[in-house]
């Protein structure tokens, strides 16, 4: 059955291999469009970079926010558009499906560096036509030299912080928002559905008229309003281009049915997103244009649709009521949109020198269910239809999530569990009962907290109004412990990189060890804040986002671009990684050195210095004779709670330049592997360079009591403090959750998760491949539980034949 262990997070920007055939029927149209997405080899499209740069050359004398607006307008007016045969929802990101545009304003430096390696990568591979390479290298990218966020930010980083930034084995990995735009938004889709861009323009004009231009800030506001109007008009014009294209195709086609569809598309694109949506189809199309434009404006990731089932449902309900659409037709439209989510792709920044790369994901997080603004269950017909769309389409995007609470209907939980059983790691599950109070503690209003969405992988945020910087950095907590036990000297480089805390021999109790650890954490969190605040200022200076701003609540009212802090909520969310590694290390020190006196500092230090070579017995002692987080044992779990608190409380002390607070998270986005590379041996028994624990999951192989004990241990971590999100990955063997009984079991498990007040959980099924690896490396997989003819056993303990049998069965399960 189950293991609670720790591979990588599943959602990646690439579709997984070996997906099984669909289990419920999508229409032939949807199947065809979907399969098309699976066939295309991603490539690099130069158009956006070309048009954007042209516009920038033409507008050098103008204010940045207006230049940005004009550049976006130029792209939208001139980029190639297409309508794929059979599509019902239209709108494309680049000149071909699953091709990625280039965003030179943020990415010029790394695109130049990686231009020749994009097509040689093993993963995240992109085809780059020779003439595209040449144009980028010779004509486009040189213009941006010295102008990107990266170059400007690093030029002004204070010297001591710069040293920390450049460390060979760093504590902090903060480059996502240095080398890319921020993204990570849930913009106000429902507002566009309600009032259209015409309505938004009208609002901007009213604000503009009301300005007293002698007020000190009024001229900046005027610029923003002008920029806003430019992008709003560009959005409408862009839709009209599709109306024309549809009309053109309609005239050409022989197929009557398709002609009517195309005429319909033309009418719709003529009407939305300029005007309020009147039908479900119009609402879907308007949604898609908004979503698409957020993606064309910047290279930000994790642009999240949020509570799609809530704001879309009224349109569906009205159409069904009036008999304008059948459920089947509505499902097909929805399925077509699902395919479009899978069509979007962006270039991934994979420095060729990095041996291990965590991964990138588009993370278009779409979340279903949960409570409404009165705290009642809000699940509706569309929530179920979205689950069906997921079954029909099964691409890696959207990142599907559900919200649950005590009142979640059993029927909805079962429907979600059925999708989980497909084994794609979707939907992820979020707990209203923890996340809502957590958001309240961040100063979010009750109304917004009840209506929360998830951004990216696991980050809770208020809806439509938040610039949350939710994936601002990864912070390596075990590295801080390494430094605390070595007077601030990096064990891998031998250099003094952290404050000189006392040598361990001079520490007379575990409290002294914890104090030294706190000192290291405080030092590095401080530098992390200086880095991120530097990026923040420079993003505002050179990379405003007028389109996202006019569809984010607060910005029009405040008359400023959201990069300047005009959204209603502004956070910065850096993630602490490796909680379990620190907790297990502290537990081992406390028990073996200070309580049992079974180990001396001298011996432990020697073992760590030598990465346990020649000290195998010490390693076994650390692994086996000390309590471990993940076994529902308060001794280690209390230390895990403390480790979480130390990081969260330190981070929460700070504010960002947008007037918001720092919000800590405890999740890894698959970075636990690369971050592990920079950490030496640890008193948990972990070897130098090996992966860290995944999210708030226990260390690999140290949870010995099964998943319920893991749930209990994890529930002791301060979820309410880690308001930027936590992550727990559970693995299930497919046949444990097979059949009616298995479905019920999964639902029951999710209910327990809810009662135990955990933030997030996601399930993966154990693959035959994993089982084969377990056969080859039994020690690494010693806690891999499998089902043997109806009961669970540790896989590595059963005999070879039976193992083979289970592998065989696993391959054929579901």
């Amino acid at each position, binding site marked *: 059955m189950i293991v609670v262990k720790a591979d990588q997070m599943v959602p990646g920007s690439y579709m997984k291999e070996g997906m099984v055939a669909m289990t419920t029927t999508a229409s032939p149209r949807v199947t065809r469009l979907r399969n098309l997405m699976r066939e295309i080899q991603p490539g690099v499209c130069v158009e956006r970079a070309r048009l954007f740069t042209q516009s920038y050359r033409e507008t050098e004398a103008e204010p940045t926010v207006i230049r940005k607006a004009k550049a976006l307008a130029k792209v939208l007016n001139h980029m190639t558009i297409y309508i794929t045969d059979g599509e019902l929802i239209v709108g494309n990101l680049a000149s071909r499906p699953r091709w990625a545009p280039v965003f030179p304003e943020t990415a010029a430096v790394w695109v130049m560096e990686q231009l020749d390696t994009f097509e040689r990568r093993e993963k995240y591979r992109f085809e780059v036509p020779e003439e595209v390479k040449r144009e980028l290298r010779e004509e486009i990218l040189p213009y941006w030299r010295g102008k990107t966020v990266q170059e400007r930010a690093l030029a002004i980083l204070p010297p001591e912080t710069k040293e920390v930034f450049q460390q060979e084995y760093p504590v902090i990995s903060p480059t996502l928002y240095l080398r890319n735009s921020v993204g990570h938004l849930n913009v106000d889709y429902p507002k566009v559905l309600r009032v259209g861009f015409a309505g938004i323009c009208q609002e901007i004009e009213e604000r503009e008229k009301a300005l007293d231009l002698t007020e000190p800030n009024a001229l900046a506001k005027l610029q923003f309003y002008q920029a806003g109007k430019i992008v709003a008009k560009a959005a409408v014009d862009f839709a009209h281009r599709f109306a024309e294209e549809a009309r053109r195709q309609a005239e050409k086609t022989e197929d009557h049915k398709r002609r009517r569809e195309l005429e319909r598309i033309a009418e719709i694109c003529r009407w939305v997103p300029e005007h309020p949506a009147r039908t479900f189809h119009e609402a879907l199309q308007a949604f898609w244009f908004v979503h698409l434009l957020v993606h064309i404006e910047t290279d930000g990731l994790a642009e999240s649709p949020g509570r799609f089932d809530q704001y879309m449902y009224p349109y569906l309900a009205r159409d069904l009521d009036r008999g304008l659409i059948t459920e089947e037709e509505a499902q097909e439209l929805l399925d077509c949109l699902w395919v479009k989510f899978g069509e979007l792709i962006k270039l991934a920044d994979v420095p060729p020198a990095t041996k291990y790369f965590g991964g990138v994901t588009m993370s278009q997080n779409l979340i279903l269910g949960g409570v409404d603004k009165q705290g009642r269950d809000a699940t509706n017909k569309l929530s179920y239809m979205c689950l069906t769309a997921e079954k029909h389409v099964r691409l890696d995007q959207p990142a599907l999530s559900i919200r649950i609470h005590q009142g979640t209907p059993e029927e909805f939980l079962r429907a979600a569990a059925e999708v989980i059983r497909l084994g794609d790691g979707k939907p992820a599950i979020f707990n209203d009962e923890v996340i809502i109070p957590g958001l309240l503690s961040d100063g979010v209003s009750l109304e917004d907290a009840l209506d929360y969405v998830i951004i990216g992988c696991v980050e809770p945020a208020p809806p439509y109004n938040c610039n949350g910087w939710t994936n601002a950095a990864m912070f390596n907590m075990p590295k801080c412990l390494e430094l605390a036990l070595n007077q601030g000297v990096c064990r891998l480089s031998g250099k003094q990189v952290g404050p000189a805390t006392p040598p361990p021999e001079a520490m007379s109790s575990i409290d002294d060890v914890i104090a030294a650890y706190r000192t290291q954490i405080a030092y590095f969190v401080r530098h992390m804040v200086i880095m991120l605040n530097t990026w923040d200022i420079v993003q505002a200076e050179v990379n405003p986002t007028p389109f996202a701003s006019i569809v984010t609540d607060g910005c029009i009212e405040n008359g400023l671009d959201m990069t300047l802090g005009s959204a209603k909520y502004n956070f910065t969310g850096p993630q602490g990684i490796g909680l379990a590694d620190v907790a297990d290390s502290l537990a081992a020190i406390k028990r073996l050195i200070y309580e049992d006196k079974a180990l001396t500092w001298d011996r432990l230090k020697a073992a760590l210095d030598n990465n346990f070579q020649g000290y*195998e*017995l010490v390693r076994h002692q650390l692994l086996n004779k000390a309590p471990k987080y993940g076994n529902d044992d308060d001794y280690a779990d209390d230390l895990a709670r403390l480790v979480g608190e130390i990081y969260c409380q330190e981070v929460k002390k700070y504010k960002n330049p947008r007037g918001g607070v720092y919000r800590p998270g405890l999740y890894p986005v698959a970075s636990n592997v690369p971050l592990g590379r920079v950490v030496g041996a640890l008193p948990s028994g972990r070897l130098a360079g090996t992966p860290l624990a995944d999210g708030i999951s226990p260390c690999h192989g140290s949870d010995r009591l099964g998943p319920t004990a893991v749930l209990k241990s994890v529930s002791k971590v301060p979820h309410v403090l880690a308001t930027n999100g936590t992550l727990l990955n559970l693995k299930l063997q497919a046949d444990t959750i097979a059949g009616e009984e298995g479905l019920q079991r999964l639902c029951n498990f999710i209910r327990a998760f809810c009662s135990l007040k955990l933030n997030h959980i996601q399930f993966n099924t154990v693959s035959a491949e994993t089982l084969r690896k377990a056969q080859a490396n039994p020690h690494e997989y010693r806690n891999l539980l499998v089902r043997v003819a109806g*009961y669970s056993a*540790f896989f590595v303990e059963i005999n070879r034949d039976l193992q083979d049998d289970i592998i065989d069965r696993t391959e054929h399960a579901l």
Partner: protein
Amino acid sequence: MRGLVFNIQRFSLHDGPGVRTVVFLKGCPLRCRWCSNPESQVHQPEIMYLERRCLRCGACSAVCSAQAIVSAEDGTRVINREACTLCGRCVEACMPEALRWSGEEKSAEEVAMAIEADEVVYRTSGGGVTFSGGEPLEQAEFVYEIASICRRKGIHTAIETSGYAEQGKIAALIPLIDLWLFDVKHPDNEKHRYYTGVDNEPIIANLRYLSRLGVPVVVRIPFIGGVNADQETVAETIELLRSIGGVREVHLLPYHELGVGKYGQLGRTYRAPGYSVTAEDVDEALEKFRAAGFVARNDGIKPRPRQAD
């Protein structure tokens, strides 16, 4: 009161309804030839040796004042079980956990606390605790105490028993046990004695007693090739259960040879390999039981404690 527990296993899915915690109690009056839990048989703690994990460091021998644990030629360890005083020092000294305790004395309160740890999961899944063994009725008073605490805390209780016990012990537990998982190993007394070392008469009497009182019972049959999996024995078993009346549900536990390696770890020999059954045997038998009016299902194999390794 204290009892001898050899494992408390959480997240068990097949020993009663819902997600359960199984409390394995050490000591058993039967000596089933196919037993996959040899460490459950003896009524006292034992030391297990896992050669695979042994680093041949010698720490165990160095701390053993009875000189009961010695090195074989290849550096692996041999325990002289006669000389061993069960002082446990070698277990403490063994860093890679090649030496482990099998069986630990625990108080009823301690066990109850461990059971309560998954209370939330029982509530959401309709699960609870299952007492197993060995033979839990060998420690009936201990079970009584734990089950009383569980009753107070509203935790569902089940017991997995061979049925070989004095009726008085069963009578005392009836008010505290919500579900009886009752083994019927062979309908024929002689064969029963041959395979398990004891008569089946008291077992059948106890089953009759439980059904007469209307206590919820599920009959479980460890389904073993060459022992009770043949057509004839299945028919006899059906006959027996019919004559008892009151039993509605029958679970087959098809046999797999899982515990064989453990005999070696305990310094004992496994007497009779080759008891596995085929899927066809199981399906055929299930059909027969169903035809005879029983609710019958394949329930995997008998619970057996997991060991982290």
